[in-house]
């Protein structure tokens, strides 16, 4: 499986929240990679995603959808792969803007992706709504997983 290491991992500790007043989204870094190794990282990743999406001009409703999707994806990393990263990137295509959330890990992979995408199916004792839920929250959803190699989930949402 293609597993490119995208961008440099942020230096230790959360970076100070960027001051966005008077800046446009063009000033934002195109990509933001957040290591996910613990529960606290789940919270940090979703807050970072909300921040970036707000700077891109998403409405507050969408901010919560995006933060929730990131929370589910980051929890999957901690739960199944122990470590991985969430890469947030801004999208620009045919005049529309959006955000891509990519969750990647080198974990055990998902043996049966179709089964994992079925609502209510869970191997962790959870509600089994994680992945199918993320697909519903976001506009586009792609999952690539290979046993013993890892999983990459890419979810995109566009500004309406």
């Amino acid at each position, binding site marked *: 499986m293609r597993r490119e290491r995208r961008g440099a991992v942020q230096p230790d500790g959360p970076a100070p929240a960027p001051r966005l007043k008077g800046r446009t989204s063009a000033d934002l870094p195109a990509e933001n990679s957040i290591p996910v190794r613990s*529960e606290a990282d789940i919270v940090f990743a979703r*807050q970072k995603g909300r921040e970036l999406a707000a700077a891109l001009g998403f409405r507050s409703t969408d901010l*919560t*959808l995006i933060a*929730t999707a990131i929370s*589910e994806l980051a*929890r999957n990393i901690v739960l199944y792969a122990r470590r991985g990263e969430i890469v947030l990137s801004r999208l620009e295509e045919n005049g529309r803007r959006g955000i891509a959330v990519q969750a990647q890990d080198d974990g055990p992979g998902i043996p049966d992706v179709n089964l994992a995408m079925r609502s209510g199916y869970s191997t962790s004792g959870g509600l089994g709504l994680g992945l*199918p839920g993320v697909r*519903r*929250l976001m506009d586009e959803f792609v999952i690539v997983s290979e046993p013993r190699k890892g999983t990459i989930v890419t979810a995109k949402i566009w500004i309406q």
Partner: protein
Amino acid sequence: MGVPILKQGYYLIATIQTALTDTDLQGLRDGLIAQIGRYRARGVIIDITALDVMDSFAVRTVQDIAQMGRLRGAETVIVGVQPEVALSMVELGLTLAGVNTALDLEEGLIFLDERTKRASKGGEARAP
């Protein structure tokens, strides 16, 4: 960081004030379930106004609190679900089925007063 649990009359009120990790949520669950016994509480209000997301883990924990609380004799009501949080929950398919909800703290108290009122002690359920 923990969630402060306030005792008011026969009720326990937990006001979430910041984003919570999974461990924080489990701590809230355990704290509430223990305090229901310690204070002989009949009702629990969880105010999630300030919670940034209600993802599947948070919803599951809240459902657990409501069910465990009921087994301990207390009724739970969730208040402060914000419009955007409600939308994301519906999109995720998380409907909080079987859990009482009310608009805000005030409505939550009224709800519990009605629910926990006892025939012999009508109107007395909520201590001043």
